[in-house]
């Protein structure tokens, strides 16, 4: 959207989407970590609880920051949003796959341990695991799948323009 309102090139809108959507918060890196958790825990609830409470240490310093919340859960959420529940329910209904169904059955328990509601990244992680994707494959596919939505938002804002786009003039303060 920022690319759209400024009249940036259309490819730049997708480049920005990939860069911003790649991270640990709701991004493809979080989905990557979800798959790692699934690989480690599968349908063992006690392993999930243990891994959530005692996450793996990062080891050698990386360009990716360490996770600050359990992957697949929203650190800023209060309750599981309706669209997330609906998506999970629908995928279970149409796919009837084992790990999505397990996630649906144990969502509340996992959310309690994670101290945060399930997020779209968590649903996506389970779905990719059921599709037998490796973590790096899931990371790539998650990036690709968010591009169409980003594209239409950019095109829409290109027409709407910067004047109607929030600039947060009053919401910005430089402190000492």
């Amino acid at each position, binding site marked *: 959207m*920022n*690319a759209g*309102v*400024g*009249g*940036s*090139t259309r*490819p*730049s*809108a997708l*480049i*920005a989407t*990939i*860069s*911003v*959507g*790649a*991270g*640990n*918060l*709701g*991004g493809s*890196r979080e989905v990557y970590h979800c798959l790692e958790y699934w690989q480690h825990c599968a349908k063992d609830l006690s392993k999930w609880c243990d891994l959530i409470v005692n996450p793996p240490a990062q080891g050698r310093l990386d*360009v*990716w*920051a360490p996770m*600050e*919340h359990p992957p697949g859960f929203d*650190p*800023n959420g209060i309750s599981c949003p309706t669209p997330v529940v609906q998506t999970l329910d*629908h995928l279970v*209904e*149409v796919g009837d796959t084992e790990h999505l169904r397990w996630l649906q059955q144990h969502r509340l328990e996992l959310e309690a341990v994670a101290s945060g509601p399930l997020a779209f990244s968590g649903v996506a992680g389970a779905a990719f695991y059921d599709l037998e994707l490796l973590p790096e494959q899931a990371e790539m596919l998650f990036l690709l799948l968010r591009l169409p939505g980003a594209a239409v938002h950019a095109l829409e804002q290109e027409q709407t323009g*910067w004047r109607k786009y*929030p*600039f*947060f*003039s009053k*919401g*910005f303060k430089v402190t000492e």
Partner: protein
Amino acid sequence: MSHHSNLEKYEDNWQTSMGGWFPGEKVLLRGKNVFTELNQKSWMEYLLFTVTGRESSKIARLMEGMWVICTSFPDPRIWNNRVSALAGTTRSTGALAAAASVAVTEATIYGLKPIKGATDFFYRLGSSIEDGQSLESLIEDELKLHRSVFGYGRPLINEDERITPMMDFAKSIGCGDGRYIKLAYEVEDWFIQSRLKYRMNIAAVCAALLADEGLTSSDFYHMATLAFTAGAMPCFIDAESQPEGALFPLRVSRINFVGSQQTREWRS
């Protein structure tokens, strides 16, 4: 082998005078040895040589002043910086943030399109005036064709607070008195007296200053590609240092959705 494609001659065959790396030995850039002939250059002098083939401490210093004074502001509200800040708040990487910000900087209301366009405009203007056309008619033609003139007018605020410090800096190093910067001010005078009342923005100033040093619009464009990164990076660093997702979150109720109210039918 018979000739099948224009690409055939390039198969395993890239020939270039730009330079290259000789593993374990040296690096050449435009015929010069980086380790022995270019190693004392400042980064900006090196970048200028890379892009244009010119060696000029003065132009490099002028460019450096532009990067510091004009283009690298650490404000996450500015659209290219906001992308970088968003990457910080979502915990992406610094390189991805910078890459995205650089890409988005190729914008219309700011950034690389005005930079390239303003330089091109001044060169065309200068050439047409030499051919006998009037400044007024040239500006009016530009407006009729494009509805805007790159380098004039600005989103959010008309006046550009960067012009005075940039011109002071330019004059301090012996720039700022050339033909194109004078032309830039003449164009501003026309706009001020017109109904549009546009003021010159910094793209016009920088374009004119560099045109006076003989840089082409492509030269300026390439040199400016990275010019915003020192503003984008602190936005990333700042957002990364604050809680995840904390950059200007918007609750759903603040989104003015005007689309269809039809319930989505999920396919089984």
